[in-house]
């Protein structure tokens, strides 16, 4: 059972929302509300302004809180790919899953049931990119097995520390 998931690089994302629309176009038949959402934030006063953009759909967590919080046990985890998906026939749209999801991924669909990113189930995992990853002009979204993604985030950090004089600690690699 290999766990797949998304890796999102905030330094590359410019908040253009192409991933949102690509997800809508690819899942047109089953999607009534946007599964992937980009948040663009700016803080501070001119000219000391800091901005960041984050494109978040489901992170397909290993021990997904939404799966445990659902009173109808409608959310299940795919064994091979680790993709967390919702079963529409069981879901009643009570949105307890959204209350517990740390990333705010579940969306309330127009059909009265919860809809969420299905990690592009149709697309063979590990063979081709997900719809949002394929469209992202900056290639800020990367999908793959967790080991690959963590290795990648370490490589990016190492590569950055090699030339960046300021030894800024990169998120999550404190213990290395």
């Amino acid at each position, binding site marked *: 059972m290999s766990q797949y998931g998304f890796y999102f690089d905030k*330094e590359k994302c410019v908040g253009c929302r192409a991933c949102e*629309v*690509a997800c809508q176009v690819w899942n047109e038949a089953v999607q009534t509300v946007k599964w992937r959402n980009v948040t663009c934030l700016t803080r501070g006063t001119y000219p000391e302004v800091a901005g960041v953009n984050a494109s978040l759909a489901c992170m397909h967590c290993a021990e997904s809180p939404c799966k445990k919080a659902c009173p109808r046990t409608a959310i299940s985890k795919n064994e091979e790919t680790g993709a967390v998906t919702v079963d529409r026939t069981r879901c009643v749209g009570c949105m307890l899953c959204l209350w517990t999801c740390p990333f705010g991924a579940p969306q309330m669909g127009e059909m009265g049931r919860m809809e969420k990113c299905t990690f592009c189930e*149709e697309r063979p995992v590990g063979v081709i990119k997900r719809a949002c990853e394929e469209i992202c*002009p900056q290639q800020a979204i990367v999908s793959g097995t967790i080991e690959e993604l963590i290795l990648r985030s370490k490589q990016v950090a190492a590569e950055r520390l090699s*030339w960046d004089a300021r030894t800024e600690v990169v998120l999550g690699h404190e213990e290395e």
Partner: protein
Amino acid sequence: MSQQTTREIINGIRGTKTVPGVCMICPWHCPTENFVKDGRIEYVRGNEYAANRTTRCVKGISSIHSSRDKDRLLYPMKRNSAGVHERISWDQALTEIAGRLKKIKDEFGPESLVSLFHLDSNEMFTHQLFGHLYGSPNLSGHGAACDQDRRLAALSTFAHPLPVKDYANSRFVMLWGADPFGPNEALHENRELLEAMKRGCRLIVVDPNRSRTAEKAHIWLPIKPGTDGALALAIAHRIVETQSYDKSFCDEWVHGLAEFSEHVLSNGYTPQWAEGITGIAKETIIAVADEFAATKPALMDGLKGLVNYTTGLDALRTVFALNVITGNIDGPGNLILKEMSPLGFPLEIPEEEATIPEKPPIAYGMGYPLAPDLPTQLLPKAVLEDDPYPVKALFFHVCNPAMSDPNTRLFEKMMAAVELSVTVDIYMSETAQLSEYVLPEASTYERAEVRESMWAGPQTVLAQPAIAPLGESRPYYEIIKGLAEKMGYGAYFAWDSWEDWARTCTAYLPVPYEELKEKGVWEGELRYRKYNTDGVPTSTGKFEVYSTMFEEMGYHPLPVFNEEHRVKPDADYPFQLVNCKMQYHCGTHTQNNPYLMAIVGENYVEINSLDAARLDVREGDLVEVASPHARATIRVRTSEAVQPGVARVPHGHGFGRRFGSIARGRGTHINPLFETRANPVSGGISFNECKVKITKA
């Protein structure tokens, strides 16, 4: 399992067929792939063989809607006496237009036809029909509203109209008023720049507004609007003073370095002087100048932020001069003088058939001999007063000057005064509503195109029709063919399918036609430092920092910083109006798009929170923005990213839109506020020479 391309895998999943195409939303023409299944476009993405790989920007991916949009133009229309557009047949439309064109040519000469287009590759047919056969010299793109100054500055410095950027190998990138991460999305360049930055490339952005690119930059210089020229000259002063330019390169390849240095030093363009004007500390200017001179390879480029001011042309000439004197030109990681692929014209027209126009292009008569494109904002005055010579026929193809040019009232008068006005578009745009004939064009999914794309090296895109044209719309080449037959030039347009002229176009490409058709794109080899082999096509055979072309035409050969034409905010009009673009929209075609209108439906005036507090206005309130010329009511958006004293308004919205169920009635048309101001040399529209006052509505 053979190494299946991702196309085949997706076709396997969805049972679709892949048809290579091209995206027609913005000037970048990214090669694309359309996935078609029984007459419907299921999915679109970038072409995996092209430089942008499978990526596409938000406007591109959402343009799938225009292949199914029921609000598109579906049949030819003619405006009746009551001013209402009625449906007419193709035959009647083409016969009447051809008759009128012949009558106008006999009476006023071929020069009285002006044909404006945005960027469609099928303009080759316009050039051949209206240019070679009909004989009009006034065929022009939308350069005046876009990058006219940049093209002229590049022509005068490198004798190349359109330098592009090789970010992948660059170590230092400085962008003046350009926002590739924001509205002017340049697909593969964005990815290359970000990957280069990950490898340590420095990004410096000069922009009064905290744009998306400024967000990612290492250094952001929040300059006062319109004063980029002073900063560029100050950097040049620093580099020339410390002699940190590339001496060997300059001796061999640069003309006029001595005059340039003497000019910069004697006129006192010191960083201290620039600090007062631009508001950027002189230490920062010196640090940036030294870092630019020291890091190789580096590149500097500027775009919309500069060209919207009358000082823009000289600023860009200085920026390009800085590239040249530090030897950063046409090498890996520099500005690349793009090499075009050997594309021919689609039709063979023998020399003697072509009619040579007697009168010069209208731009000469208007006093802008060096203007690369016709200054469309001065066209209304020229038409109404028959200024250089009478213009009786206007032909618009996929461009909407009624919406995008300043001083809309004058434009409306022109459209009423002119004898024949024809618009070819896929939507009933504002220009179409004002013109007599409206011909529906097939969208990019329903027509073929052979075109050069904007990758640094030679790259040809062969787009093919994926679905049948909607309603009675026709591809542009069919319209031109119909018109040509009615005008008696049918002999040259004797082809039955688009493949015939596509083969003649791509005859000289080294790739076989079948392979190009299957892949959809051909990429030649990106050659660096082409001047070593091919030389520099300027009159002096060198890159010209002292421009002989300008000298001949009586303009100042060296870039200066004069603000005599600048319109500065004053007491009763305290705000500088900046005409900007939105990241999620690009012109008329995205206005009726449900995906984009869901993200941002209407335009807004963006002002700094301090100004909003002073005006006692909150986010979302309606305010009245008034320039000495006109006024408009629009919603406010307070933001920390905008410089106090500046009001940013995205153009391209509103005008009491009537053409689409989603676009109808949304947005505010801001262009009437801008006066008709042109850059004295290039004739480019200086939108931002405009001061406004904002009051609570």
